[in-house]
């Protein structure tokens, strides 16, 4: 447990210090949202309708942005080998890295999403619910992306491959995330069922993602 916390703290520290790019995801998210009205027009009613979808798509792409650095930098400077030969099981180590990624990339997204929702004319009383769907759904994105990052780490042009591998697998998360957000805004469908399925997807990927990612890393590095 101590080494888990140490690894987690190390990754968080690396991310928030110079050159880490912790807030890059949030900035990218902001830019995607700002670009949307230029693409679809400043019609507030239309923006209110597609607002949750834009927030979710932007959040998903911003999560992806930081994923290819998850193992790539450690692989380049050799610390991934140290982690792999360390006393802590590789599954737990990759889970620690994923949690660090979520804390530094996804949590800022969740925090600024009500503000961006306001800019997209999402109803004020639903802003908190939309942020809640992002809070519940982004762990699934991180932990599914973890597998893709582990698969791509040893390959050249891995970063480009990552998006192709990971995005189709995240379709269910997107569907239920947007469904829950829309239910919170407009109804009449209840918020509960899609939201609980979203939570289930997140929990399942938190359990299965590290196992698959650790297997992928072992094969990539032998």
């Amino acid at each position, binding site marked *: 447990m101590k080494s888990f916390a140490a690894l987690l703290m190390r990754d968080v520290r690396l991310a928030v210090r110079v050159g880490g790019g912790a807030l890059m995801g949030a900035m990218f998210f902001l830019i995607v949202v700002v670009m949307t009205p230029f693409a679809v027009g400043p019609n507030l009613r239309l923006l209110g309708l597609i607002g949750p979808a834009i927030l979710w798509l932007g959040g998903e792409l911003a999560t992806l942005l930081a994923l290819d650095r998850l193992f790539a930098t450690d692989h380049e400077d050799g610390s991934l080998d140290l982690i792999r030969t360390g006393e802590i099981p590789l599954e737990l180590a990759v889970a620690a890295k994923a949690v660090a990624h979520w804390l530094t990339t996804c949590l800022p997204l969740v925090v600024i999403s009500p503000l961006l929702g306001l800019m997209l004319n999402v109803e004020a009383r639903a802003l908190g619910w939309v942020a809640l769907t992002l809070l519940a759904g982004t762990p699934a994105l991180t932990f599914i992306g973890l*597998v893709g990052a582990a*698969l791509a780490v*040893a*390959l*050249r*042009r*891995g970063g480009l*491959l990552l998006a*192709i*591998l990971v*995005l*189709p*697998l995240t*379709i*269910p998360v997107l*569907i*239920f995330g947007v*469904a829950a957000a829309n239910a919170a805004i407009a109804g009449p469908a209840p918020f509960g069922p*899609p939201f609980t*399925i979203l939570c289930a*997807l997140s929990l399942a990927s938190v359990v*299965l993602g590290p196992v*698959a990612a650790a*297997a*992928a890393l072992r*094969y*990539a590095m032998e």
Partner: protein
Amino acid sequence: MAVIDFANPTRFLKLANRLLPWLAVATVLTFAYGLNGALHAPDDYQQGATVKIMFLHVPSAWLGMFGWMLMSVAALGTLVWRHPLADVAGKAAAPIGAAFTLLCLVTGSLWGRPMWGTYWVWDARLTSVLVLFLLYLGVLALYWTAEEPGRGARAAAILTLVGAVNIPIIKFSVDWWNTLHQPASVFRMGGSSIDPSILHPLFAMAIAFTLLFVTLHLAAMRNEILRRRVRAMRLIQAQGLASA
């Protein structure tokens, strides 16, 4: 004779070479029978002659899914038993499965134009087959990026298994999302809802398509083994040149 006996590529090649002509002949014969039956099947009372697209559409959909199942079994063989032919089998199945899935999408879209009035709708079944096609493309991209065949095979095997876990979830979520395509009508509780005059040639076509898949797969495996031998020989040759 156990599966492990065919781990020897030379023995496998011998067997494949012996089987392939027979399989090819069987494929051609079943296709002749199935196509003949399909052409003589009665037109549908609503859809007219366009129902004949079904004889290509439904078997390719089955084989698109069969391809991923085969790859998942091969992936288990690669990861669990390290069977040397399993990664060859998985790699050979990927482009064939992708081709059948694309065939299913194309024929379905050509069928949808006269029946639904549009080439494409974002319906649950169509969308989940499209996602299956995207997953195939991801596996193919992984194979293309890997420089060393063995390493690419293990990465692709993990991705295949992750996909196998995900495909039912994607199917379920997309069903939740939107539904227009008719539900399954060939296999269902209380018997098939399709008339025997159409069902019979459909099964013949399904067998013909499966035989085609097996033939192509076996040939592709043979080619892949030969390709790897050529690669190994080239490496040895290059090594000899370098040390000389």
